[in-house]
């Protein structure tokens, strides 16, 4: 609201400072207070007016801390009379507002409360700001006497003093609260006493530490309550001696040192309410007021029980550690000390705690003279690089003689430039001895490996080659190289037994062993500079003591010579067989013609002998055929004409071809069932297997019995063909070698039963070459069932 006579605008920065001064008193919008109301009443009374106000002017209003004869608590600053008052230093008086141009149209004049008379004295702060007024108002024109004006000004100064007091009271309460909070939150027990040593305040830590509530402690003499008398007496006696005057064994024990300006900080064992003692670090400070008058003492007690507990725990832990635990401090000036040494000191260095000086010298003197330089150098190096220190060295132990210790420590640079080490020294004499023994053994092993005629190669768990013995180096003409497993075969020239096909990574024995396999007698070749070396590989995974695989090792045995002899033998068998066959063919054929009566009738007395000669010449031919087959099979030279054939016709053909032979033993062959499947085989070779099984079955069957030929699916895509007889079965002793070369039930059997003893060996080889499997089930005395299994597919379907 505008007045018709605008008031001069105050300088803006001055007004801001005035507002800041006003706010500092924190009085705006506070509740009524009697002290201020008394002054307002006094003002109204002195000035004989119906209304009096204590008014404070902020940026947009005047607010009344106290008001007499007026209802409103504030009015807008624009219509305020007080705004004029605070612009001057003296009492501002308007005798009749209606006659005053500045106020004649003021709504407070023209309307409620119809002000005619106004007189106000400014409230001036000590720093010179007018914050408001003490003013009186009347609805009638009037004027103040000089006494009244002076009284109004005095009242305004009185109000200002109240403001100041109020402000100080606030500040004091805040500080007190803060001090209390500090006391309460202190980790130490705090006890405040008066100058005579009677407790006037305690914090909660003190209550907890000593077991008393605040009420029980307040007013009690501190030393009599919490200090053991004998400790006080002891301390008093010491102090008395020091000072040359008597110190009473009471509170003076704590305060006497303070008189000399010393700080009294000392460990005490104080009394807990329950009778136990509490270890504390006690600190006593005197409290003086602003006039240097002694008001009392603050006694703080830091609980050492926790620290004692930690110390004990460290001691217990250190006792469990074999060796010496230490903390070592090396200062820039070259001095050193051991802030901590565990009880292992005697064990490792043969030093008692009493023998320990604050320096490293006693320990250093125990180091074996030959090792001293190295030890020092290694410590210096670790200190300068701040890297962990680890060093094995010898100690001249007074009791144990020369022992080996391992020292390890971690250096840490301290803010003052010193280096602090935390470390451990352990007696490793035993381990050292074991190590030396182990070294010896390893040397022995190494020599043994080098002397072996077998090649030995090893690798670690990551497949890095770690060992080639002498023989391995010679055979490969190479040493251990950084070659990954995927390149071993290529780099070290590893091939299959044929000497031509390179081994794939998965076939290299060492690689297989590295994957956990145990390899026994894997035949392979090493081909270096055109020389083929045949070897048998035996490989095993190696395991560490924790059970984890640590690598693999392979031992290679040279069988080149044996292979050459084998090849010679085979060539010999092959050559001889071929050479035998031609004359035998003519003998057999001639006997065939004679026995076939082509050359005319044979006299009766010759016929039987000629038949015997004919039969045996045929048997000899069969033996030679078998030998040649075996030879081809083992040499890998037999070729197979693999085709898909329906199974049933193959079985029927075999039955037909062998029925004649079975007839000669008065045995019949019957075919049971056969699923409609096809097998992928060389038909001629399958017929050979079937003939072998059927003729064996017929041969061993009692006369008049039947041999059963059948086939059934054992899996959707696998057929089993069985030949069962009712013969004597397979003796247990014979089971193991029945599929071996020249196997027959017993040696006399060959003659009795005929046959070469190669049939089953050939059959097994043939079946394996056709992806089949051969086997038998038999109970001695209850017949035998020989079977083979082959992959198959339903007729009409393509093989998968």
């Amino acid at each position: 609201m505008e007045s018709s006579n605008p008031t001069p605008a105050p300088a803006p920065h001055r007004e801001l400072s005035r507002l800041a001064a006003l706010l500092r008193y924190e009085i705006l919008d506070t509740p009524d207070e009697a002290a201020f109301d008394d002054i307002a009443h006094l003002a109204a009374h002195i000035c004989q007016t119906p209304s009096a106000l204590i008014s404070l002017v902020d940026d947009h209003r005047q607010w009344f801390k106290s008001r007499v004869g007026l209802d409103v608590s504030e009015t807008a600053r624009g219509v305020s009379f007080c705004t004029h008052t605070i612009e001057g230093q003296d009492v501002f008086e308007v005798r009749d507002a209606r006659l005053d141009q500045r106020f004649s149209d003021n709504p407070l004049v023209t309307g409620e409360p119809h002000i005619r008379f106004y007189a106000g004295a400014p409230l001036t702060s000590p720093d010179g700001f007018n914050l408001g007024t003490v003013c009186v108002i009347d609805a009638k024109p009037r004027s103040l006497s000089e006494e009244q004006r002076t009284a109004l000004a005095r009242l305004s100064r009185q109000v200002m003093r109240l403001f100041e007091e109020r402000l100080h009271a606030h500040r004091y309460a805040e500080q007190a609260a803060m001090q209390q909070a500090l006391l309460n939150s202190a980790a130490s027990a705090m006890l405040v006493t008066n100058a005579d040593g009677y407790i006037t305040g305690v914090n909660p830590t003190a209550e907890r530490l000593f077991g008393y509530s605040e009420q029980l402690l307040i007013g009690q003499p501190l030393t009599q309550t919490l200090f053991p008398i004998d400790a006080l007496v002891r301390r008093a006696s010491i102090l008395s001696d020091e000072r040359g005057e008597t110190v009473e064994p009471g509170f003076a024990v704590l305060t006497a040192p303070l008189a000399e300006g010393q700080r009294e900080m000392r460990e005490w064992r104080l009394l807990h309410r329950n009778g136990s003692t509490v270890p504390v670090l006690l600190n006593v400070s005197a409290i003086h007021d602003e006039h240097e008058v002694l008001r009392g003492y603050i006694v703080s007690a830091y609980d050492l029980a926790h620290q004692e507990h930690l110390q004990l725990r460290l001691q217990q832990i250190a006792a469990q550690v074999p060796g010496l635990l230490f903390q070592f401090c090396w200062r820039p000036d070259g001095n050193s000390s051991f802030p901590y040494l565990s009880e292992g000191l005697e064990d490792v260095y043969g030093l008692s705690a009493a023998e320990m000086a604050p320096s490293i010298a006693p320990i250093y003197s125990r180091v074996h003279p030959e090792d001293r330089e190295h030890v020092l150098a290694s410590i210096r190096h670790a200190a300068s690089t701040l890297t962990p220190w680890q060093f094995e060295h010898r100690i001249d132990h007074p009791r144990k003689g020369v022992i080996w210790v391992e020292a390890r420590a971690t250096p840490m640079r301290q803010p003052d430039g010193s280096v602090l080490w935390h470390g451990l020294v352990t007696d490793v004499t035993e381990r050292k001895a074991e190590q030396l023994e182990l070294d010896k053994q390893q040397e022995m092993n190494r020599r043994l490996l080098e002397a072996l005629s077998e090649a030995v190669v090893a690798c670690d768990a990551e497949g890095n080659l770690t060992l080639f013995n002498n023989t391995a180096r010679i055979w490969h003409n190479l040493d251990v190289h950084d070659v990954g497993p995927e390149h071993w075969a290529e780099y070290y020239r590893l091939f299959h037994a044929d000497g031509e096909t390179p081994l794939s990574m998965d076939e290299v024995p060492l690689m297989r062993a590295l994957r956990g396999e145990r390899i026994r007698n894997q035949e392979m070749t090493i081909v270096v500079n055109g020389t083929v070396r045949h070897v048998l590989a035996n490989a095993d995974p190696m395991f560490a003591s924790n059970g984890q695989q640590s690598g693999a090792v392979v031992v290679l045995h040279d069988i080149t010579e044996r292979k050459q002899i084998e090849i010679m033998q085979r060539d010999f068998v092959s050559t001889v067989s071929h050479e035998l066959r031609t004359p035998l063919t003519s003998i057999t054929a001639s006997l065939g013609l004679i026995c076939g009566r082509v050359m005319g009738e044979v006299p009766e007395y010759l016929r039987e002998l000629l038949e015997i000669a004919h039969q045996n010449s045929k048997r000899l031919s069969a033996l030679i055929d078998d030998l040649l087959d075996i030879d081809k099979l083992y040499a890998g030279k037999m070729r197979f004409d693999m085709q898909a054939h329906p199974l049933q016709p193959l079985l029927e053909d075999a039955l037909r071809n062998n029925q004649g032979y079975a007839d000669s033993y008065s045995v019949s062959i019957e075919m049971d069932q056969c699923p409609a499947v096809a097998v992928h085989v060389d038909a001629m070779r399958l017929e050979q297997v079937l003939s072998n099984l059927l003729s064996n079955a017929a041969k061993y069957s009692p006369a008049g019995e039947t041999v059963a030929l059948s086939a059934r699916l054992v899996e959707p895509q696998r057929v089993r063909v069985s030949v069962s007889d009712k013969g004597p079965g397979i003796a247990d002793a014979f089971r193991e070698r029945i599929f071996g070369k020249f196997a027959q039930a017993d040696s006399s059997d060959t003659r009795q039963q005929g046959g070469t003893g190669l049939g089953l060996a050939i059959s097994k080889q043939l079946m394996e070459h056709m992806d089949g499997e051969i086997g038998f089930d038999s109970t001695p005395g209850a017949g035998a069932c020989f079977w083979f299994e082959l992959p198959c597919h339903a007729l009409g379907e393509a093989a998968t």
Partner: protein
Amino acid sequence: MTELKRILHVEDDPSIQAVVKVALEAIGGYQVLSCSSGQQALDEVQAFDPQFILLDVMMPGMGGPETLTRLAERVDLSQVPVAFMTAKVQPGEVEHLRGLGARDVIVKPFDPMRLAGQIQAIWSAGGV
């Protein structure tokens, strides 16, 4: 169909030569000329004018297959079937020998009682 009469047999082993001759002549009633080498066969083939030639595969000097190739220069093999005699053969070998122009392969050791029948069967199947 012409009746098979004259068979030329080439075989270096005299024993087998003799046995085959007996078997074919006595059982089959054929007329057999036995030659001990490929060269002898080449020399005598035109004079003998065989209707069927039985050739051993393995012979010293000129082997069976070479003999066959050279015989083809002198005889019209479309009119004169040739069969090889050989020890047990590997798969593929029979195909190889057929590829050289042979009609069939008779496997040693042969059955002398059946030999004439086998040759007659080849002769008849040949449709000559």
